[in-house]
């Protein structure tokens, strides 16, 4: 359907309104009469914008902020925990540095360079089956060593903030660690007096290693709570590091006594570990 063109009456109306528009425009430019209306409109616009924002957007934003804040806190907490674990491992290393580096005069080297990274690597626990660790003979864990250099870590010993937990036996990126409690693992131990030496076998039980010896050969008196140290004779572990305390004495035979040594280090207590190759 065709649209009607403006008739003379409508044309007059157009003309009138155009004239009014021009008049308003002129008055506004020259006298700024309508500034009050504009300012009121702006103030209403701004206040309603804020009101709407406070009703709709702000609750959602504050909720998101709260969630982000929680996430940030969790991340920060994790980071702090990691740093704390690392400092604990380093503290352990510093406390035992005399023993750890005694075997190859590493103490001088350590003091000269004062650079832990030469021999010391931080590792992270990747996998350990706690059920197997509690029940079975094969006590292994898998760690990731954070090192830029392509070193061979096999036969390096692994420790956490409480003590030595085992040695690296295999691996390139993820390294397998045989724990002291693994039944196929032997740890050379000694007493503080250096009158008793023994190869302590893994017991297959968590926290315990067993030491079988002939009392006719080693006549040192044993008692519950006696402290055992690494002897360093195996070449893997440093000498003189506290490894555990005597928990039980099994006198089954005249020629054979079995000592159960309770280890001081728990491999599943920390997920950040230290690795040192002597």
């Amino acid at each position, binding site marked *: *359907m*065709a*649209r*009607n*063109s*403006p008739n003379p009456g*409508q*044309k007059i*109306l*157009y003309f009138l*309104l*155009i004239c*009014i*528009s*021009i*008049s*308003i*425009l*002129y008055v*506004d*430019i020259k006298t700024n009469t*309508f500034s009050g*209306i*504009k300012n009121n*409109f*702006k103030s209403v616009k701004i206040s309603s914008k804020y009101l709407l924002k406070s009703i709709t957007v702000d609750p959602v934003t504050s909720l998101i902020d709260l969630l982000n804040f929680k996430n940030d806190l969790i991340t920060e907490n994790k980071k702090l925990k990691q740093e704390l674990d690392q400092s604990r491992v380093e503290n352990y290393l510093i406390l035992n540095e005399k023993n750890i580096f005694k075997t190859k005069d590493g103490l001088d080297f350590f003091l000269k360079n004062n650079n832990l990274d030469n021999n010391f690597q931080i590792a992270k626990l990747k996998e350990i089956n706690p059920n197997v660790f509690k029940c079975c003979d094969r006590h292994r864990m898998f760690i990731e060593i954070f090192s830029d250099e392509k070193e061979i870590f096999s036969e390096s010993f692994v420790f956490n903030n409480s003590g030595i937990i085992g040695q690296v036996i295999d691996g390139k990126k993820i390294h397998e660690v045989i724990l002291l409690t693994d039944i196929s693992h032997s740890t050379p131990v000694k007493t503080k007096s250096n009158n008793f030496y023994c190869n302590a076998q893994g017991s297959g039980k968590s926290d315990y290693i067993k030491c079988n010896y002939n009392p006719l050969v080693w006549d040192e008196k044993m008692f519950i709570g006696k402290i055992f140290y690494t002897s360093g004779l195996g070449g893997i572990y440093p000498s003189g590091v506290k490894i555990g305390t005597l928990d039980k004495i099994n006198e089954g035979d005249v020629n054979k006594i079995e000592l159960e040594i309770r280890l001081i280090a728990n491999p599943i207590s920390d997920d950040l570990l230290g690795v040192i190759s002597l």
Partner: protein
Amino acid sequence: MRELFKKILLIIIASYIESIFYLYLINIYVIFPITFLLYSFLIYKTDKFNNVIEAFFIGLLVDLISGTYFGTNALLFCLMSYLINLNSNSFKLFSYLQVCLFFGITSSAYVGFTQMILNLYNFSYIILFTSALFNILFCIFIAMLPIYFPRFFSRKI
């Protein structure tokens, strides 16, 4: 009445969008009068004779929203309404390109006029010409859309 409210709502939204685009497009010397083009399109599309009073008050509303001098948009909307109503039957004889040229040129006239009122001492011909080119191309683009997307544009532009 419902139609009028719908129109006013569309105009308010267009004015808001225009204020957002303005900041980005001015960097490439373009002023894109979305509100004016939308209102022109609404007048062009309607089958009925457009009420001049409606154009006048919508123009005043746009003046109020956009913060320009009162009467600027009222005057231009009235003029545009008159032009479209006067040539409403002639447009049917025009090709799409001619209609696009008409809307593009009137929108650049709008840009020129508003610039003369609001920005007289820094009036820029570059802005005027680039805006004219941009607006004509935009109108052509809009006119071409139903060819490529016929399902979305069932009605003839």
